Each structure stands twice: as structure tokens, then as C-alpha cells.
């Protein structure tokens, strides 16, 4: 709690600054793509949100592992706090993808491996959140959701590769990978990086804020319980 109090406003401010810079730069100061026209600009929302949708789940997995191994309460609460943010990121990625897909592929939705994996990821998030909500005792809930998160991760990865077996896709390959020479042409790439940084910062800020809320809620509950016993 102590170090997050000064960090929180800064992370929100930085996230806002990066997002405004990246989006304004991307939307107004980059040329139209010669084939895709101005629709290419939705990349500045689509790619970062998709990236964060996956990274939020990975963060939940790491936090769950920390909870299982070290039983550090804040990590369980952080995993809980990240889940709704991850859901929203998944939804943003799906919706912006649909809006982008309509002019490019002629359809909002196709049962393409990537799209399908994202839909499955969305279902995993829903199950995870529902389990958190369903259990009253907070330690039991933390334990059970941690196991669900770990097992779910294995199955999410399995599903991701399984859908490739099932259907070949419309979606292009990865837009961002570390070992490629050039991922996206530089004019689009730099504002994209700024947007990604903005999304990462926004995610951190939101998770910090939600975790602080969870910790406070936990404290209030403990105080109320103490009050009842006294």
C-alpha cells in the first residue's frame, strides 16, 4: 500500500500521456496505408489491447503461482484485480478486430484460429471471475481460482494450438515479434510502440488501483469481524 500511493497518480498520468500521444500521432500524423486506407489506424487500439489481453492472463498466472507457493495475500488480490481488466482488453481486441475485419475481409467475424482463441480466452476469463464471485471464504476462493488459473492456462495454450489444426485463418501472422527484422513499417511502428506503452501503463495503473481497493475491502471486513467479536 505504501509505495503504491505515490506511484498511482503518476502511472495514470503517464498512461494518459502515452495514450494521447500515441493515438493522436497514429490517427492524425501517419499516412494512410496504400491498400487498407485509413482503416489501418485501428491497429493502434487493436494490437495493444490484444497484447494486454494475453499479458493480463500471464500476470494472473504468475500472481496465482506466487500465491500458491508463497501465500502472499496481495498476489491473490492482484490476480483477482487483473481479471476484469483482462476481460475488457479481450473485448476491445475482439470488437476493434471486428470493425477492422468488416472492410478488409468483408466480415465482422470468422472462425479463424486467432479470433477463436480470443473468444476462448474470453470464456476462460468469465469462468475465472465467476468462480471468484461464487465463493464466500476469501482464502478458499484465492486457492481455488489459483488452481483454476494454472490448469486453465494449460488448456488455453492447448486450445490455441488445437484451433490451428481445425481451421486455417484469415488473420495475418504476428504483427510484433522480437526476432523479425522489421515488423511494421517504421511510420506506423513508432506510434504503435507508444500506444503499447500507454496500454501497459494503463493496465498497471488499473490493476494497482483495483488491488488497493481489494486490500481496503479486506481490511474493512477484518475490522467488522473484529467489531462483532468485541
Amino acid at each position, binding site marked *: 500500500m505504501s509505495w503504491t500511493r505515490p506511484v498511482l497518480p503518476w502511472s495514470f498520468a503517464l498512461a494518459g500521456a502515452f495514450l494521447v500521444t500515441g493515438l493522436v500521432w497514429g490517427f492524425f500524423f501517419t499516412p494512410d496505408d496504400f491498400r487498407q486506407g485509413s482503416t489501418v489506424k485501428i491497429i493502434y487500439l487493436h494490437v495493444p489491447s490484444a497484447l494486454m489481453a494475453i499479458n493480463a492472463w500471464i500476470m494472473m498466472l504468475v500472481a496465482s503461482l506466487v500465491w500458491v507457493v508463497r501465500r502472499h495475500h496481495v498476489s491473490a488480490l492482484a490476480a483477482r484485480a487483473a481479471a476484469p481488466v483482462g476481460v475488457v482488453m479481450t473485448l476491445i481486441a475482439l470488437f476493434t478486430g471486428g470493425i477492422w475485419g468488416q472492410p478488409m475481409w468483408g466480415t465482422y467475424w470468422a472462425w479463424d484460429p486467432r479470433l477463436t482463441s480470443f473468444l*476462448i480466452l474470453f*470464456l*476462460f476469463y*468469465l*469462468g475465472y471471475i*465467476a*468462480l471468484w464471485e*461464487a*465463493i464466500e471464504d476469501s482464502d*478458499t476462493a484465492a*486457492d*481455488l481460482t489459483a*488452481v*483454476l488459473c*494454472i*490448469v*486453465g492456462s*494449460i*488448456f*488455453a495454450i*492447448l*486450445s490455441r494450438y*488445437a*484451433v490451428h*489444426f*481445425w481451421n486455417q485463418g484469415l488473420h495475418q501472422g504476428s504483427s510484433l515479434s522480437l526476432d523479425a527484422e522489421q515488423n511494421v513499417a517504421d511510420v506506423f511502428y513508432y506510434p504503435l510502440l507508444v500506444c503499447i506503452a500507454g496500454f501497459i501503463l494503463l493496465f498497471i495503473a488499473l490493476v494497482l488501483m483495483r488491488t488497493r481497493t481489494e486490500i481496503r475491502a479486506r481490511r474493512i471486513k477484518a475490522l467488522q469481524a473484529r467489531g462483532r467479536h468485541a
Partner: protein
Amino acid sequence: MIALLKRDLALALRAGGGFGLGLAFFLIVVVLVPFGVGPEADILSRIAPGILWVGALLAALLSLDRIFALDFEDGSLALLATSPLPLEAAGMVKAAAHWITTGLPLTLAAPLFGFLLHMQSTAYPYLLISLLIGTPALSMIGTFGAALTVGLRRGGLLLSLLVLPLYVPTLLFGAEAVRRGAAGLDATSALVLQAGITAGCFAILPFATAAVLRINLR
């Protein structure tokens, strides 16, 4: 282990509808689909593999919440946890009992239902084999889900929400194998991958099931 298996099977049989309920549900799904999509034989034969697999999956889902619920209520689950038999093995036995009462009858009945849906004759062996290797995974995953939700009063709906996404790889490879069989293609790769999923489920999930049960019994 065998005593536990026998006990679970006996309980499932005597409680009524152990074998019958899942099968009846499967039949109803198969009967309802032609009402929904129309009676044309060529459409039905195209979608038959998918319908049969989804139907089997839903029928397996139906009886999941009974795997642990009764044992949890009357305390025999706590007894199991303290017995010399490891809880991991108990979870596997529970999954096996669930498979014998739902997965096996579904597998045996599926060709008959495939006949109702005008499935291509080349698909029948693949349907049988894929269900035979796929349904144990459904039971094992379901047992894990049932263990997760055992302490909840109204866990049924949540159980389906948790378990169905985990069923995706099994369903996908199973239905793909049957579809390839129907098209006269070689479906070995799909079957091998599905067998891998099943083996992986049995390697990992008994431990997860036991861990979750211990948490719920705490």
C-alpha cells in the same frame, strides 16, 4: 480402489438414471437438431459428426455435479481424504466411474444416433474410436470441475461455465477426426493428438483435483 469403483458404480445404478439419463439426453439432442436445421439428409450428414460430439459432451456434463456432491454432504469425502488411498487415486476412480456410467454408454450408442443423422458410413469407425479415447478426458476434466465447485450450494451452472472451455481441445480433435473420416480422409493425426490430450489430462488433472478437494475440505 476397486472397492471405491464398485461402490460408486452401485450408487450410480441404484440412484436411478445413472446410465439412462445421459443417454436419454443425448437422444433428445440428436432428435431436436433436425427440427432446428430441417430434415434434408445432406445437411444432416454434413453436421452429424459435430452434433454427435457436442451432444456427447453436453450429456457428459449433465451428471458431473453428482460426482462429489453426495459424498461431500454425507462426509464420506472427508473419510476418503483421510483413508490410506491417496486422494489423487480417489479422483481418478471417480472419473473412471463417471466414464463407465456416461462415457461408455454414449460411445456405444453414438453409432446408432449417427444412423439417425444419415452420417457417412466411412465415419463410423472414427466416431467410435474418437469417442472411446475422448470421453475419458471429458470425465477427468469434469471431475476436476466438480471438485472445484463441490463446496458451492448452486455450483451447477458455474460448473458448466468452468468446464466447457476446458473441453475445447477434446471436442475439436474428436469432431475433426470424425469429419475427416466422413470425407474419406486419413484421420490418424487427429486421433493421435486427441489421445495425447486424454493422456495429458490423466497425468495432470488427478493432482489438481486432489489439491482442490483438500482446499474444499479444509
